[in-house]
């Protein structure tokens, strides 16, 4: 295929043309600083609040509880570090999972160097957090539970409602990193007892460099970025007006099209899953079969290494990602794949394909056909496969 087949929508998504169109005036004629007094500026304040309103409605939240940030990573950092600081008099213990995004895990590691104790809860073989272990980890000093809504690598959706109930019953704050889930799954912060929620614009066909943190009214969280009085004194810095407007537009479209998209993506994804699992030997699906994001497929192919697979897929115009060490920038494969119990060599052979509504059945067929060829080629070069075949012959 001449056209690029983009199957890395968990990494980032294409900004929708309607989103770009909504943003454009705010770069040019409506460039005013929302904090200024003249009309050129105040109309931008309105545009920001419109976007805030769309997002609040999408979450069943109060409009004043949405705080714009520069992205999901900032939101996660803010939620964890500011909670640790604001609730220091109550305790110094945080509970999280072993499969969080690095924005949460590395923030936790930072906090551990500053007197905070962190419990990292295990997940089962499908990547679902062990609720009994979570309950047992609760201490009188626990101030926060932070568990992601859905995992970015294996797509597993966490039992957020149950975690929210546990947190509420124990009077512990509950933060969820919903960067992958927001816009893909229906989320209601009140029904789910979520106190803080992080999300990002570019994962739902919005622009990069914009995100938000939902902070339930009454929480004592203070500013993380100090400066001006923007975002009700809680997040300083001149607002990214085009980004916020684009984010709002993207959320509006995502909410309108959610059901339809889910249906289409699940259909395509399941076709892909079925064919790969049936036609490629020595492969496994990572993550839960059904409790997973509609667009996520994650496989491990035995005896081969992920980066080689990615490069060969790229040569066939297919964009994908892997949890192998070579792609993570370290010598260890993905912490998520290790947490679900995969041995290192199987984790190295992982492939994540994350679809979007624009993908077609034809593309899925093309991708599976190429995967089959490439996996076979790489196995023919693999000493692990050679050993496996020889030991079978004996």
């Amino acid at each position, binding site marked *: 295929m001449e056209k690029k087949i983009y199957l890395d929508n968990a990494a980032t998504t294409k900004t929708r043309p309607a989103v770009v169109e909504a943003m454009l005036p705010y770069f040019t004629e409506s460039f005013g600083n929302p904090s200024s007094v003249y009309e050129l500026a105040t109309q931008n304040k309105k545009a920001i609040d419109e976007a805030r309103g769309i997002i609040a409605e999408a979450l069943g939240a109060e409009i004043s509880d949405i705080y714009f940030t520069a992205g999901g990573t900032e939101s996660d950092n803010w939620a964890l570090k500011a909670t640790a600081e604001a609730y220091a008099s109550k305790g110094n213990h945080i509970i999280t999972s072993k499969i969080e995004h690095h924005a949460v895990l590395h923030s936790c590691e930072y906090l551990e160097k500053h007197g905070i104790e962190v419990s990292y809860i295990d997940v089962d073989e499908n990547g679902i957090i062990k609720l009994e272990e979570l309950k047992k980890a609760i201490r009188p000093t626990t101030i926060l539970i932070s568990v992601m809504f859905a995992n970015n690598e294996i797509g597993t959706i966490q039992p957020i409602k149950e975690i929210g109930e546990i947190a509420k019953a124990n009077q512990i704050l509950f933060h969820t990193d919903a960067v992958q889930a927001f816009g893909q799954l229906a989320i209601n912060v009140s029904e789910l007892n979520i106190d803080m929620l992080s999300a990002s614009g570019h994962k739902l066909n919005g622009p990069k460099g914009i995100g938000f943190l939902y902070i339930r009214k009454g929480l004592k969280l203070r500013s993380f970025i100090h400066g001006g009085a923007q975002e009700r004194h809680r997040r300083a810095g001149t607002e990214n007006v085009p980004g916020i407007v684009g984010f709002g537009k993207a959320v509006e479209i995502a909410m309108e099209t959610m059901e339809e998209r889910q249906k289409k993506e699940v259909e395509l994804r399941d076709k892909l899953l079925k064919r790969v699992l049936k036609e490629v030997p020595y492969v496994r699906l990572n993550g839960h079969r059904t409790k997973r994001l509609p667009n996520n497929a994650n496989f491990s192919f035995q005896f081969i290494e992920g980066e*080689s697979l990615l490069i060969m897929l790229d*040569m066939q115009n297919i964009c994908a990602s892997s949890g192998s060490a070579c792609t993570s920038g370290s010598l260890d494969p993905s912490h998520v794949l290790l947490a679900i119990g995969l041995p*290192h*060599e199987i984790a190295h052979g992982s492939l994540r394909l994350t679809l979007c509504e624009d993908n077609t059945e034809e593309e899925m067929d093309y991708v599976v056909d190429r995967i089959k060829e490439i996996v076979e080629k790489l196995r023919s070069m*693999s*000493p692990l496969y050679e050993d496996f075949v020889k030991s079978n012959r004996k």
Partner: protein
Amino acid sequence: MYSEKVMEHFSNPRNVGEIENASGVGTVGNAKCGDIMRIYLDINNGGIIQDVKFKTFGCGAAVATSSMATELVKGKNVKEALQVTNKAVMEALDGLPAVKVHCSLLAEEAIHAALWDYATKNNIVIEGLDKPKSDISEGEAEEIY
């Protein structure tokens, strides 16, 4: 991220395969770190490497360095093959990203391991060849750059 040479060797690796009853076989690396290289040498009575094959489990750089290393030792005598260092492999590939330098070390080590196997089988001593490490550990790989 990779040079054209690396991509070329990755796309069309030279000397992939096995040699039955090889004069020497060396396997280095481990699956935990995501790289395993196996090199087969066919060495004639005059000590010339007349054929060489490899199999590699690993990233693009691991495949390319294996391919290049086999090219560099083919037709050489044992002593000359011993001079094929990781640096020579890297230079021949127009360089490697810093995080991939350990792949070239692994390639050098795989050649040495195959030569060691040949020496052991034939009860000879190859001057300058020490018993190879079966693995390139993370720490060592990092010290190099």
